[in-house]
């Protein structure tokens, strides 16, 4: 891995270099909540000053740029006899993601495994994924962050450049030659030992700030053992079956497909919409039979998929510990508490 | 020639709501001519009793689907008046813009889809889609503009979601509003073509002297709030609306009737123009004159033309409002609302005339008493008297059943009555 160090003032220059020819997506402030805390979102930005690099967590992940909530998989031209299928992966340009946290980059890496890795890679995702350039940035743990428990507090790959604040300067990890070339446009220097020290200090200070934890020891086994546990009913009773947790999750990718005919009857479309396993009809089949008829079973399934099934398949969990779902859940169902209750850990 | 005539229309079509027309002429003599409102009453004034203030605009907007924006705004104004809230300039401008688009969409709907087919000898707009596609497309285009702009400012085209007491839940994007300017300019041209089309129609020549009531403009043509005025010279304050409407009940109608200096009066586009002619936009003014419309005009059929003139006026003014909005530094969209006890009245000119909402609140902002006076109900008595006069005049000159029936229908439609609203 190649490292560089550059003055914080250079960052704007880097932004300008990147934005002169490309579309940039970054964290911006979109309002304030009832406690006057800023609310952040990933959005297209053209002005460096609008980017809030010290943002906490965005409400929604950057998912919409590579896994849109709604997307046409195909359109059809209907002719007198027969039809023509038109496929478009819906990409028009590369995006630069400026300021993704480690958890969100890890989320992309996990999505890559399902959507790009295994059999039948999904071109709609892959095309967008291949057309992104990622500048990661370090973060300050929030009270709800448990990424460290999920091993997502640092990220080793899946980005082009990752910046860590070491005081007056940024410490940059460089993973791609594109990133290396971009950095040539600004003033950088090679790190010296003192920089390494500053870097490690910043990391250890960050680690001290984590307050939320999830014990993942033997979690797959425990989830299996506790499959019939009463605690699921407890959480199920609170769950609104609203799907918010999946929608704000950077790794939830389940979807449904619907085919519709346009009102002129001359065209039709096949549309994919992100769905949620917490919704009542997620596992309903023709004839009305529902394989997961009760809410606690559906809620359990979500945990089961993330913390057991995915581990079984890829040896890592499908949760990055960003805490978004717990923060957005009006019923206050939070992963650390749910897992702790399944493990019968009382605090 | 002495005629016998029997007109019996149950549930008049191409009007909003349910009303019947009954005319009986025997041997050239009018026996009776009746305008009956048979709409089922919905008791909004009772529904709201005991509810918190927040419910009022949201629920009372449901009095009418066509003028839901007007109802919402009147309700908000009444509440703001009761609580002593003065809307910011930005809020007032946006509300006016929204109001204008409702006026445009309602007038276009009426001119092209409801009363228009009468002049083009069609039963509805559907055959016109084939016989006059350009006309229908032009109307659809203008309606779409009005509706889209309502969506943009008010959240949706009916039962708006952004209009609240104290301002708006959110403001439209400047860029988005800017995009509407070109469409408004185009609408002006479309309205001029509409005027050309209406010049080819023969507007029935019929007049009956009556009184016209509307809001009184100070510097601008009036739409939201202000003094109340009549062509007979009555002037009242907004909160004295009861003295202007004098609602009473009559047997043939589930809607209440109104009277002022005479036994009936008229509200609506014609009344507004009769009272505020000089405040019209110059282009609107010009079009009015080209139809020979100037105050005080007593031909109820001319209400159609008055609506057309108003369309021009609101389109021109909306373009200006957008310019002003684009130049304004946007702040908080809404003010804080602190309820207090008291009574407030909101008077708003909706497409069919002047609309009043009045609420009395307790100190926690719960509604103790609610009163809504709808333009169409103010018009009912006038429609009735016009109908009698019309039947009488035409019976004398010996017109036939079908002709009288059509003229009677057209007369009622000219008022663009919104019956379900009048029986809220």
């Amino acid at each position: 891995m190649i490292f560089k160090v550059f003055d914080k003032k250079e960052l704007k220059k880097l932004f300008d270099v990147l934005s002169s020819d490309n579309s940039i997506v970054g964290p911006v402030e979109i309002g304030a909540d009832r406690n006057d805390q800023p609310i952040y979102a990933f959005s297209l930005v053209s002005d460096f000053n609008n980017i809030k690099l010290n943002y906490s967590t965005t409400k929604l992940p950057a998912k919409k740029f590579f896994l849109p909530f709604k997307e046409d998989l195909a359109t059809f031209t209907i002719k007198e006899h027969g039809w023509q299928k038109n496929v478009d992966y819906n990409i028009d340009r590369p995006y630069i993601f400026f300021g993704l946290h480690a958890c969100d980059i890890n989320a992309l890496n996990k999505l890559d495994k399902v959507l790009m890795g295994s059999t039948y890679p999904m071109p709609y995702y892959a095309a967008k994924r291949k057309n992104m350039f990622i500048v990661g940035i370090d973060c300050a743990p929030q009270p709800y962050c448990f990424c460290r428990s999920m091993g997502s507090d640092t990220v080793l790959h899946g980005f082009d450049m990752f910046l860590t604040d070491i005081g007056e300067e940024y410490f940059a990890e460089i993973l791609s030659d594109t990133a290396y070339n971009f950095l040539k446009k600004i003033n950088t220097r090679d790190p010296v030992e003192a920089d390494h020290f500053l870097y490690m200090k910043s990391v250890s200070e960050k680690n001290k700030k984590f307050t939320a934890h999830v014990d993942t020891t033997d979690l797959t086994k425990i989830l299996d053992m506790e499959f019939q546990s009463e605690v699921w009913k407890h959480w199920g009773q609170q769950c609104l079956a609203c799907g918010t947790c999946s929608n704000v999750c950077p790794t939830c990718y389940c979807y449904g497909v619907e085919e519709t005919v346009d009102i002129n009857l001359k065209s039709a479309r096949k549309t994919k919409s992100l769905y949620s396993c917490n919704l009542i009809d997620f596992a309903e089949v023709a004839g009305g039979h529902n394989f997961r008829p009760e809410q606690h079973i559906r809620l359990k399934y979500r945990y089961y998929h993330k913390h057991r099934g995915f581990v079984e398949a890829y040896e890592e969990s499908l949760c990055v510990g960003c805490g978004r779902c717990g923060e957005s859940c009006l019923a206050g169902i939070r992963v650390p508490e749910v897992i702790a209750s399944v493990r019968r850990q009382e605090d | 020639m002495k005629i016998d005539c029997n007109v019996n229309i149950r549930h008049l079509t191409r009007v909003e709501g349910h009303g019947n027309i009954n005319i009986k002429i025997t041997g050239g003599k009018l026996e009776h001519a009746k305008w009956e409102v048979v709409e089922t009453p919905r008791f909004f004034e009772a529904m709201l009793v005991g509810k918190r203030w927040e419910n009022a605009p949201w629920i009372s907007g449901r009095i009418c689907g066509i003028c839901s924006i007007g109802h919402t705004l009147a309700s908000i104004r009444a509440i703001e008046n009761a609580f002593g809230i003065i809307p910011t300039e930005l809020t007032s401008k946006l509300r006016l813009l929204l109001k204008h688009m409702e006026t445009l969409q309602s007038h276009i709907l009426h001119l092209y889809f409801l009363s228009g087919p009468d002049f083009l000898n069609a039963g509805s707009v559907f055959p016109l889609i084939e016989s006059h596609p350009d006309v229908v497309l032009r109307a659809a285009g203008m309606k779409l503009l009005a509706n889209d702009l309502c969506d943009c400012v008010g959240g949706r085209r009916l039962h708006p979601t952004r209009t609240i007491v104290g301002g708006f839940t959110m403001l439209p994007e400047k860029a988005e509003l800017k995009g509407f300017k070109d469409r408004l300019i185009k609408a002006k041209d479309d309205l001029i073509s509409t005027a050309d089309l209406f010049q080819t129609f023969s507007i029935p020549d019929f007049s009956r002297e009556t009184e016209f009531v509307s809001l009184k403009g100070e510097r601008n043509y009036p739409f939201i709030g202000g003094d109340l005025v009549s062509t007979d010279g009555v002037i009242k304050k907004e909160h004295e609306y009861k003295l202007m409407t004098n609602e009473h009940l009559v047997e043939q109608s589930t809607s209440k009737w109104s009277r002022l200096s005479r036994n009936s009066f008229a509200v609506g586009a014609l009344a507004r123009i009769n009272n505020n002619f000089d405040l019209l936009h110059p282009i609107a003014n010009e079009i009015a004159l080209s139809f020979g419309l100037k105050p005080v005009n007593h031909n109820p059929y001319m209400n159609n033309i008055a609506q057309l003139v108003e369309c021009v006026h609101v389109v021109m003014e909306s373009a200006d409002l957008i310019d002003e909005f684009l130049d304004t530094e946007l702040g908080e969209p809404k003010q804080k609302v602190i309820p207090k006890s008291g009574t407030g009245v909101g008077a708003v000119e909706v497409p069919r005339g002047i609309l009043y909402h009045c609420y009395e609140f307790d100190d926690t902002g719960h509604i103790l008493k609610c009163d809504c006076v709808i333009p169409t109900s103010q018009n009912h008595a006038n429609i009735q008297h016009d109908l009698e006069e019309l039947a009488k005049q035409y019976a004398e000159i010996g017109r036939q059943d079908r002709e009288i029936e059509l003229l009677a229908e057209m007369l009622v439609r000219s008022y663009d009555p919104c019956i379900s609203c009048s029986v809220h």
Partner: protein
Amino acid sequence: MDTHLKFTDIKTEGRQKSHRRDDFEAFEFTYKSEITNIHQLTEMENLYRIQILDPEERKRFTFQPGQFLMLELPGIGEAPFSISSPPSRHGDVELCIRKAGNLTNFLAKISRGTHVGIRGPFGTNFPMEKMHSQNIFLIAGGLGLAPLRSAIAYAQDNRSRFNNVEIIYGAKDPSQLLFTYQYDTWQADDINLNIIVEKTDPSWKGPVGLITKILEEIFSKKDDDFFKNTYAIVCGPPVMFKFVCNMLGQKDIPMQKMFVSLERRMHCGMGKCCRCNVGSTYTCLKGPVFDYWSVMNLKEAI
């Protein structure tokens, strides 16, 4: 240096010729096909004969008994269906489809010659080759006969490679029996056919009752050695295969030698949409055909 990021294009034209599982273009690729014939089997089920139009593609389309494909009618819907025809007949397949919803009802209204799209084949299959030189029980309840028919055809085509072949088929009532016109040909190929119906009608001469009843009868006629060399394929509603597999288990048939086909909701068929997950196993990738041991290990499978 140019600061413009290079746009990586992934070709968006659906692949025209080949079809590989690791190819981006395979994802939304449909074989354009024609419904060449429709045969009404019962009031609820039709048999559709579907031919891939392009001769090259047709040749390349191969499948194994137990696999399914996704059938698409533009604007109407897309759904998974087990292939019901002999695997020897490549891109010319038969699907036995029950009217159950939007797509299937519309299919019942179309006529011969209509174009449809098919994707696939997807999923696991019955491991027919492993069963060579063994006895096989082919046990079906209701519509479960549809996927089994492909295995039956395989057994017919490779009759010499199997010992005893026994079809056990249960249906609600005689009018719901599928593929009645083929029973003779099966028996002619020395395949035992045992049919039982739950509700009888005057035309019915055979046994009446649940499928377990007829199984017991058959079991009682076989000696213990028979079961040592036996495989079983069970297709039908979950309750049925639970009972049946338990009975087979009592005869000491190992769970790895029993195969069942699971049905779940599916929107992609390619391990993406998650709708078919059992526990967190994709039915479309790891299934629909599972050995019974795997099913036992899947939470909430039955």
